[in-house]
């Protein structure tokens, strides 16, 4: 097996060395990197904008055009920035959810995409699109429902008499993923031919259809979800010792499990509803966070949230510029970067 629970278990001694200060410093560094990525990546796109005027307009928060034409101003503030914010929200959501699943299930391979949870959300979104196409707000709700149903299905399938082993969990994920994939294929076949193409693109993860109405909802869910899981980081640390030990140490195991399942499903649901299934983010980013900052969830969860946002912003900039004015699905880029990086991490550890 590619890594066991013991690898990411934290000893209580190591615990105490981690101070609030260290968390704050790492998060401040990552937040600064995220902010500069937002600014820098908004200067890149299929259309060339004057850099100095764009920076000036960004610094004025859009109150001044700084000599940009109306079209350039609209490109920057109506198209690029909303898309970058969506990329940040989607990346932050998926990485936070991944970190949460990995800690709760004590499995380094637990990831929304690999466990079929993204597919559950995708089925929910498709149902919303097919039956309530005009009502945008139904998409995240049904996506959340789908994600939660898939999470519970995987969890129940994985839990044998001997408890959930990492192998069993991945197998359960494979079963749920393939089952839901066939549901998706079935729904696409029922749909008319013209919508199939846009669906296949969306399924691979695509941020171009940024909905102005849903963007604030997606961002809010990301921030609230990341905070909620960070607040449960101490319990999750103890859970990594095993459910029984955690229970003996006073962790309300059942309640924490429900919180993580619901919050992670909410995060996955809102990001899939907005952008389809962007893979590997929930796997690679929490791993990087743990490798560089240690496996204390009080640091690794908020670091994964910020790092995920950073990762998807950069990946999406590649997706929208590399063959401009054509575009690639961002999921293809995250997988392209993510899979080799993941193999490298596995070989190193």
């Amino acid at each position: 097996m590619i890594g066991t629970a013991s690898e990411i278990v934290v000893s209580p001694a190591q615990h105490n060395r981690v101070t609030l200060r260290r968390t704050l410093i790492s998060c401040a560094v990552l937040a600064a990197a995220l902010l500069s990525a937002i600014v820098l990546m908004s200067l890149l796109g299929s259309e060339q904008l004057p850099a100095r005027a764009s920076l000036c307009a960004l610094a004025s928060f859009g109150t001044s055009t700084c000599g940009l034409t109306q079209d350039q101003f609209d490109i920057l503030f109506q198209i690029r920035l909303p898309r970058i914010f969506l990329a940040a929200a989607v990346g932050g959501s998926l990485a936070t959810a991944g970190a949460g699943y990995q800690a709760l299930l004590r499995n380094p391979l637990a990831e929304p995409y690999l466990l079929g949870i993204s597919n559950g959300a995708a089925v929910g979104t498709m149902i919303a699109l097919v039956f309530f196409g005009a009502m945008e707000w139904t998409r995240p709700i049904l996506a959340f429902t789908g994600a939660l149903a898939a999470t519970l299905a995987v969890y129940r399938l994985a839990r044998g008499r001997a408890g959930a082993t990492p192998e069993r969990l991945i197998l359960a994920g494979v079963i749920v993923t393939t089952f839901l994939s066939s549901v998706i294929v079935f729904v696409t076949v029922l749909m008319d031919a013209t919508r199939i193409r846009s669906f296949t693109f969306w399924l691979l993860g695509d941020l171009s259809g940024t909905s102005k109405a849903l963007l604030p909802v997606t961002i809010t869910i990301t921030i609230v979800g990341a905070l909620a899981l960070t607040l449960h980081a101490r319990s999750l640390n103890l859970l990594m010792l095993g459910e029984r030990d955690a229970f003996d140490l006073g962790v309300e195991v059942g309640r924490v499990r429900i919180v993580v399942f619901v919050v992670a499903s909410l995060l996955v649901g809102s990001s899939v509803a907005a952008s389809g299934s962007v893979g590997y983010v929930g796997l690679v980013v929490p791993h990087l966070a743990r490798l560089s900052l240690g496996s204390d969830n009080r640091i690794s969860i908020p670091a994964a949230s910020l790092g995920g946002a950073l990762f998807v912003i950069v990946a999406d900039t590649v997706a929208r510029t590399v063959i401009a004015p054509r575009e690639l699905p961002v999921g293809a880029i995250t997988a392209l970067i993510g899979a080799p990086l993941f193999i490298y991490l596995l070989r190193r550890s």
Partner: protein
Amino acid sequence: MFTRRDSYLSVLVWLAVVVCLALISACTQRGTANPGASREITDDAARRVNVPAKVDRVVSLAPNLTEIVFAVGAGDRLVGRTSYCDFPAEAKAIAEVGDTLHPSLERIIALKPQVVLVSTASQLEVFTNQLEGQNIAVFVTDPHDLEGVFRSVGQIGEIVGEQDQANLLVQKLRERTNAVEAAVKQKQPVRVFYQVSGEPLYTAGHDAFVTDLMRRAGGDSVTGDVPGAWPKYSNESALAARPEAIILPSGGSMGEANSRVAEALRQSPAVLQGRVYKINDDHLARPGPRSVDGLEEMARAFHPDAFKK
């Protein structure tokens, strides 16, 4: 590990596999020689296709090909069509063989056609080999422009033995095309954005049939140089292109799926001046006789003053 019974079972299974394979190979080699004389016609994939002298059973695997077969007066010889083939109305009475991408091989073979017409969009190599193994000719059409459509009409006319009617049809279509091109010849081309779908944004690129059609109609596709036929297009590039007209292929078999202009184009000159045109997708996306209808509709939209009586 293995009991005696298991080994008997495995022998039985192997026997069954061998028998099945033998039966399958016997079946696939059953093809009979072509009766009577045959002709050789070169198709758009540069394949030399052997077609029987007299063709009276044809299957069409694309809606534009079905339309061409009917237009050259051979609708009565069409024995199979796809679920997308809905024009002319008589076509709907013909047996369905699945859709363009997933035709049922069994059903096609059961219909005993002499020729199967495919467009490259639906062409599947394995599928073609299997049909040819049954001595069914597979004829590929791949028109990239209006000239290609005229060629397809001629070829299909030749296959079904309706050469005269096909020539007459091509002549009429050419006259109408020439009339349109003459009318818009002196006009400044209108900068057009062709919106295949709004969210996500897809458009017609360099290789799309409709790009040629827009040019002939006095339009200049702002995405005409983008590689590929149906590229996913950048929102900001669409905004920056500032098209003077937008075409929304909609209606027809597409329904109302594409009836709203993409958000990035809401402030474009085309929208501000009310120059958004919904044109029947079947006239634009199916390279067939009705493409000339699409050509006329677009030309009238781009240059209304050129057609005033």
